[in-house]
């Protein structure tokens, strides 16, 4: 059991053998350490997934390029998507949730610390299993290698007929295993949030981050399970001669799509809700105002959670569903724009009348607001089904979802890293390096993903390893690829900042941002037991109340 309050392996004081420190980290059940393990794991795979993307963009620099073969390219886009969603974004979401939820709700740890550790290691193992495919299987040409069926693995391409060998099985099993880890963490989060809040913290007084993680966890339980079911069915088809998706035996390829997207769409809301959580904590602090419309933000979140379960077939508009079905899914897709838009307005209203400080976390959140707005609007375009009949499965969609994931989620996650880095490490990061990261990444992001919309509108489909020179796509692909350079530099400065600042940063103290939620009331980094004594709260901003005893929140809301 850990009694050491240091978060990272100890440096300088050469008192403990490395093997002891490693053992401590591997056997930890402390939510803060598990959170950091998740984050470190995610950053590692962010680099790997980024390299996969970079290679693809080199291949697509010009038409009929031969930097990589079609087989390698098809594996690259499959691995890139699978890695980024399951082994970067999910671990980031769970990592921050793990670290922050107990601290922000005044608890000492998660409800089930051992389940917590087990869930992390399941996820971690899943990622390793996926990459083991590169070396792990032998067999026919193309059979003993990374999966190449796309991250949504449509049937019947995944049947034994069209996917010989075991590459598809690595995809299936890696996600099956990490899916169990995700469900475990979701159950843990729900239980922690419902049962372990500190005295005085009713559900209506807990930070929005806790609400967003609560709804996210509920969605994980309802969404990852269908994927688990579909993958079990795929394994039955591939190994027991089953016919779930076997069109030759009367099976349906479309039903795989339904099952996958019943997972896939809520999944993207699972990924975005934590991003909303970060924005909801960072924007108020750097605007020096309470979040505008807390109850409405909660209601909108719950609304999004429900409606998100009903929009999945907007990924299937081109599949040949009936006009009634298509029309229904247009309605539900457009409807979800309402609570989502409300959130954007509430964040703007939080800034309105405030005193905005442009520290690095806030820079990234402002970028998020701008980019998430655009992403939402291109989503509305795609939600108009006939428009999707042109834009779907094209680079317009690729641009749209990267706008959400990179421009929205990754930007707020960077913000979260900078915002809570002082709490986790006890040191301040370099503001100069942070700005460099922001501007470089912003430029790179826009070069790549703004211009990526255009080839889509000019007819360029996704998942093609090369393209024809007579389509007018050349210049746009060139610009898109150039953006990668800037993004890479930005990430480089980010990682450098994290590492350098951990060793050389200024001491941060417990509350460097003059913030208002409970995690800032304890030391940086917090001790293993989080709080010397369990806090008792009276409002949504306990530290505001302490700092403004004449004007506490509980007088007003």
């Amino acid at each position: 059991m850990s009694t050491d309050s240091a978060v990272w392996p100890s440096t300088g004081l050469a008192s403990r053998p490395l093997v002891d420190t490693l053992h401590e980290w591997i056997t930890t059940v402390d939510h803060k350490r598990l959170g950091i393990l998740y984050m470190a794991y995610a950053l590692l795979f962010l680099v790997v997934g980024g390299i996969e993307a970079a290679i693809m963009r080199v291949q697509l620099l010009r038409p009929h390029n031969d930097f990589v073969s079609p087989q390698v390219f098809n594996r690259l886009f499959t691995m890139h998507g699978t890695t980024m969603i399951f082994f970067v974004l999910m671990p980031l979401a769970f990592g921050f949730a793990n670290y922050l939820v107990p601290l922000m709700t005044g608890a000492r740890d998660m409800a089930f610390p051992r389940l917590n550790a087990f869930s992390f290691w399941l996820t971690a193992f899943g990622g390793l299993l996926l990459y083991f495919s590169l070396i792990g299987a032998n067999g026919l040409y193309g059979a003993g290698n990374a999966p190449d069926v796309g991250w949504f693995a449509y049937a019947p391409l995944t049947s034994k007929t069209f996917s010989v060998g075991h590459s598809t099985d690595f995809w299936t099993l890696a996600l099956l295993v990490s899916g169990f880890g995700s469900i475990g963490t979701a159950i843990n989060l729900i239980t922690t949030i419902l049962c372990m809040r500190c005295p005085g913290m009713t559900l209506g007084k807990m930070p929005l981050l806790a609400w967003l993680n609560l709804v996210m966890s509920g969605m994980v339980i309802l969404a990852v399970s269908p994927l688990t079911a579909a993958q079990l069915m795929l394994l039955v088809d591939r190994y027991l001669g089953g016919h779930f998706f076997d069109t030759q035996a009367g099976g349906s390829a479309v039903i795989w799509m339904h099952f996958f997207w019943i997972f896939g769409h809520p999944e993207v809301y699972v990924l975005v809700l934590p991003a909303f959580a970060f924005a909801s904590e960072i924007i108020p602090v750097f605007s020096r105002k309470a979040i505008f419309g807390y109850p409405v933000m909660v209601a909108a979140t719950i609304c999004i959670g429900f409606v998100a379960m009903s929009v999945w077939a907007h990924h299937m508009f081109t599949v040949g569903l009936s006009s009634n079905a298509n029309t229904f899914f247009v309605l539900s897709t457009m409807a979800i724009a309402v609570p989502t838009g409300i959130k954007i307005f509430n964040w703007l209203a939080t800034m309105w009348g405030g005193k905005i400080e442009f520290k690095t976390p806030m820079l990234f959140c402002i970028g998020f607001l701008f980019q998430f707005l655009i992403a939402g609007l291109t989503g509305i375009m795609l939600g108009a089904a006939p428009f999707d009949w042109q834009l779907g499965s094209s680079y317009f969609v690729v641009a749209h979802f990267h706008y959400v994931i990179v421009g929205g989620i990754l930007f707020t996650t960077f913000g979260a890293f900078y915002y809570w880095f002082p709490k986790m490490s006890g040191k301040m990061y370099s503001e100069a390096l942070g700005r460099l990261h922001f501007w470089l990444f912003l430029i790179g992001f826009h070069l790549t993903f703004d211009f990526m919309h255009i080839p889509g509108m000019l007819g360029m489909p996704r998942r093609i390893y090369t393209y024809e020179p007579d389509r007018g796509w050349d210049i746009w692909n060139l610009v898109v690829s150039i953006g990668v350079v800037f993004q890479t530099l930005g990430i480089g400065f980010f990682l450098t900042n994290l590492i350098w600042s951990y060793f050389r940063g200024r001491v941060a103290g417990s509350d460097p941002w003059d913030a208002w939620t409970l995690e800032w009331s304890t030391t940086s980094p917090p001790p293993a037991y989080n709080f010397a004594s369990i806090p008792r709260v009276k409002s949504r901003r306990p530290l505001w109340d302490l700092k403004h005893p004449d004007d506490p929140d509980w007088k007003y809301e």
Partner: protein
Amino acid sequence: MQWEYSARGRVAMFGLIAAEAAIFTIFVVAYIFYIGKSLTGPTPKDVLSVPIFYTICLLSSSVTIHVAVKALSKGNVRGFGAWWLATITLGTAFMYGTVTEWHRLIYQEGLTISKNLFGTTYYSLVGLHGFHVIVGLVGLSMIAILTLRGNVRTAHAERVDVFSLYWHFVDAVWVVVFTVVYVLGR
């Protein structure tokens, strides 16, 4: 609303049940979708026989487990043990029924998981449920062993009750599976 620390196990079990319910729902949807769509081979009407007796066994085990938990919460460890063993017996009987049914279907009727869509969906759905029964039986047995060793006391009633929620869930799933497979689908 302030929930209690001691409700953790119950909340977590409901979370697990929700996840499992979602998985089963997808298998049930697949089963219903493929009713009547097999291109060949035996149909449900041809080969299925309704397992009334074994269903009664399984559903009764929900009653026995409930009585068992009640007994334990009142301090009657021996009564708890007896009703608990009854639950295991009834659950095992159900599995025996499934095994014999499958043996007949495979060796006499030629219905395998690869025969046709009916075979695939039937064995997957009933098999998934049976797997969950087996997991439940394993858990029940572990608690039975601990009881026989004298480790289980009234203080554990809450936790045993949480476990029994899983068993009730497994029985509830059987109600759905039974209806879909033996009533609707035949």
